[in-house]
């Protein structure tokens, strides 16, 4: 299968520019409630896309993304509560702590196969949740930790939060896109395909897996910091496994092997879940069915095939034809020879 583009390469940047302009102008048409929905959607888009970098590019399946998000949020919240640390400094320190935790876990686990990471991060996430819940004297446990708003109590408008979350999302997407398209991204995809073969070709597999784990942990921590200072209350419930499942589902439904598709998946799923509230409990049934259907019939997610159509990359069906035709071509050539 050859990758032929019907559109010039720059088309993707034009589309990204249009999407950004729409996002910048959206508040003009959105009520305060929907502004809130979009802020949360951007938060989930950040989590889904950074999880996609780890799982879709590097092939490392982690259940700890919400735990790193919580580390970022709780660090900043606790520093503000006990040391009057300014929110931005708190977010920075929370991001760093998430990165250090990621480095520790990655260094311990990532020299083993991917299943160890999944099991380890489930355990880590649950331990962290129980510690936050149990140490209620410090963390306020289930009662919730009050966190200072990012722009102070006098700012009531959601607009500054909307643009801040959007800016954080765009900057992180650009950073991750650059990483994914650098030689590091190339090595990560080789690792995803076959760790041993990548090592045999000279790739330091553990180093690049740990690097990616640290970067994505820091992005989750950063998202958690901004989330905490927007929502202004944190409870251990943000760490429960279904919350992590939601982030994974967003990335998979969007397209786990594309950062943009995963981010778009995060936004669409979050907005859809809000819209589906009218169906009450059935919204989760509809969401679950969508996930099952995506996994069964659209392994590349729902957004990725759409982007492939726009940019002219071949769908899978074409690929299958190409495989057989390529092998057939070889047979013909050999017979002629």
């Amino acid at each position, binding site marked *: *299968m*050859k*990758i032929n583009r019907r559109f010039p390469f720059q088309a993707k940047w034009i589309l990204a520019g249009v999407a950004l302009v729409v996002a910048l102008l959206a508040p003009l048409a959105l009520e305060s409630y929907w502004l809130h929905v979009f802020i949360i959607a951007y938060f989930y888009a950040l989590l889904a896309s950074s999880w996609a970098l780890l799982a879709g590019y590097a092939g490392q399946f982690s259940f700890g993304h919400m735990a790193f998000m919580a580390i970022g949020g709780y660090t900043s919240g606790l520093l503000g509560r006990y040391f009057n640390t300014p929110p931005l400094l708190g977010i920075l320190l929370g991001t760093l702590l998430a990165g250090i935790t990621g480095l520790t876990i990655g260094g311990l686990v990532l020299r083993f196969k991917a299943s160890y990471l999944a099991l380890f991060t489930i355990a880590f996430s649950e331990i962290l949740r129980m510690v936050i819940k149990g140490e209620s004297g410090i963390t306020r446990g289930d009662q919730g930790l009050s966190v200072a708003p990012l722009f102070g109590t006098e700012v009531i408008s959601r607009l500054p939060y909307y643009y801040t979350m959007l800016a954080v999302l765009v900057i992180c997407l650009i950073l991750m896109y650059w990483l994914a398209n650098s*030689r590091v991204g*190339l*090595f990560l*995809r*080789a690792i995803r*395909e*076959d760790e*041993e*073969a*990548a*090592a*045999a*070709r*000279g*790739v*330091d*597999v553990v180093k690049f897996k740990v690097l990616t784990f640290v970067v994505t942990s820091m992005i989750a921590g950063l998202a958690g910091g901004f989330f905490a200072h927007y929502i202004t209350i944190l409870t251990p419930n943000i760490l429960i496994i279904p919350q992590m499942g939601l982030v994974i589902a967003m990335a998979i439904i969007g397209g786990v092997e594309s950062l943009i598709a995963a981010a778009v998946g995060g936004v669409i799923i979050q907005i859809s879940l809000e819209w589906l509230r009218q169906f009450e409990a059935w919204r989760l049934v509809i969401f679950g069915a969508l996930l099952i259907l995506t996994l069964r019939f659209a392994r590349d997610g729902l957004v990725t095939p759409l982007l492939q159509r726009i940019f002219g990359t071949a769908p899978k069906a074409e*690929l299958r034809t*190409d*495989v057989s035709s*390529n*092998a057939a071509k*070889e047979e013909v*050539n*050999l017979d002629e*020879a």
Partner: protein
Amino acid sequence: MKLETQAITKNFGGIQALNGISLTIADNELVGIIGPNGAGKTTFVNTITGFHSPDKGRLILNGEDITGLKPNEITRRGIGRTFQVTRAFRRMTVMENMLVPALAVSRDRSRMEAKEQARKVLDFLTLDHLRNDYARSLSGGQQKLLELAQLLMTDPDLLFLDEPFAGVHPKLMETIFEYINMVHAQGKSFIIISHDMPSIFALSKRLIVLNYGEVLADDTPDIVKDDPRVIEAYLGEDDDD
């Protein structure tokens, strides 16, 4: 390039896969390794290339002890390998498959330089027209050629080829023969593991026979062919059939 294995031993549970193998591979040698199934051939390659750590013994490359180094560190020191079952990066294009080793072993090499080199290698191996295709769309034989092409991108001094002729069309086999002879003529050493007796006897200047993790014979193909121990342990199997 000079590789020495000093009394290499490797056990898996109660099975002794390698039992004190001591060999020296000199510069520009073309060595074949044969042996019955389970003789320890692939374990030997895996141990030298860092995929297994030897339980005992040392590996010396150009005077440096490389025992226990990771596979990528071994590759950077000039030892390349293929796998018994082809392991190209299937969901990456042929060109991307070439860029991975090129950029992994040299931080200074630009993507453009690596692409130029890759196209020359692919052209020699008749794969250049497929450079933008995904590796999974190549036939089995073409994937074997791609793996051989990847090896050259790391500029190795010693190339381990594990069953390079297995399941390959005779025409592609000719290309692989050409590849081996051409690269060997550039001063590179080869260690080739194969069950394809005509090919391995035709190519090798030196033939090592492994049996039960030990070196049974190590000589020129003509002498090995007539060695009664080899006939009994390995070549004789076919006669009996």
